[in-house]
């Protein structure tokens, strides 16, 4: 190796580091974008309630707003790695499935048809945004998802149940995203409990 080759090698290493830095910027941007999207959903929910669609004190309204707040705050922790970790641990020893998610609580609430539909759709849009965020912030997410899909199809073919692979995979992914929602909500509520006597002045949003 001569000095020229070495210079080229170092040049390429600097380029790789620059790409890595750029990817970090991209991830930060995606986190801000997700937060902004959820802020928009929260504003829609607020306007729906302000227009008389649902009472501000309604349990489902409060729960969905809190869910939005939790997802906004912990958006930086919504990662493919976390999804995979949750999925793997739940596969081995499921414990979160017994905890009711927002759709379950919405079903238990005696709301009118229009309000129920609106809240359900807002929650559905949140799920889509979270899934899209995960897919666009990890290099492994799309190949990982394809691998997961292929494995699920092979498994179902082996079990001779070819009917609805896509909806089956979709249901499972949505379930795991819901688990992440529960984690965000749980972390936030625990903190609210702990800080009930220590309000943070800087939190205005």
């Amino acid at each position, binding site marked *: 190796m001569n000095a020229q080759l070495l210079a080229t090698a170092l040049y390429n290493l600097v380029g790789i580091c620059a790409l890595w830095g750029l990817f970090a910027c991209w991830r930060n941007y995606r986190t801000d974008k997700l937060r902004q999207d959820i802020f928009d959903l929260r504003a829609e929910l607020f306007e729906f309630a302000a227009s008389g669609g649902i009472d501000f004190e309604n349990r489902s309204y409060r729960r969905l707003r809190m869910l939005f707040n939790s997802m906004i705050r912990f958006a930086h922790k919504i990662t493919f790695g976390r999804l995979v*970790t949750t999925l793997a641990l739940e596969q081995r020893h499921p414990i979160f499935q017994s905890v009711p998610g927002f759709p379950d609580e919405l079903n238990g609430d005696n709301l009118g048809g229009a309000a129920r539909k609106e809240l359900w759709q807002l929650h559905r849009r949140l799920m889509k945004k979270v899934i899209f965020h995960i897919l666009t912030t990890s290099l492994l997410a799309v190949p990982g998802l394809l691998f997961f899909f292929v494995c699920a199809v092979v498994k179902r073919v082996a079990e001779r149940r070819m009917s609805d692979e896509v909806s089956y995979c979709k249901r499972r992914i949505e379930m795991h995203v819901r688990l992440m929602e529960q984690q965000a909500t749980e972390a936030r509520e625990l903190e609210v409990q702990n800080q009930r006597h220590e309000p943070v002045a800087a939190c205005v949003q």
Partner: protein
Amino acid sequence: MRPDRQGKSASSFPHGFTAEHYLRLRKIEAIDGIGRIGARYGFLTVIAFLGYSSIRVLAGKTTLAEIAVRFITNIRVSAGISYAVGGGGVAYGWLQKRLRGNGIKKMAAHIKELEEQIDPGRSSSGLTERGETRPEDKT
């Protein structure tokens, strides 16, 4: 009621969560955090190792000054322009982000005030006043 490590009873957790759920959350957080930190420092280690290995081959044969000169002369004008455009784009993005943060800081308090007139029990996301992640929430 099963007490957790801090002496809390299971019923003190919200939404039907128990100490077991809480423990699982911490476990997920730890695995995810270790994975991310491992990937970050692993990448840096590999880059540093490759750089060091390249330089070690020529130890005693070539001076650092010669390598630096070759490195600089290796950057052609077209590549230099690409770097300048890329770096400029990043700087522009950063400045826009800062501007957006200033806008959020200015507007958020006003929106909060107006919304609280309609919903006195309004809850907050808990982000900082500039709409950024709180330092204690970062892994």
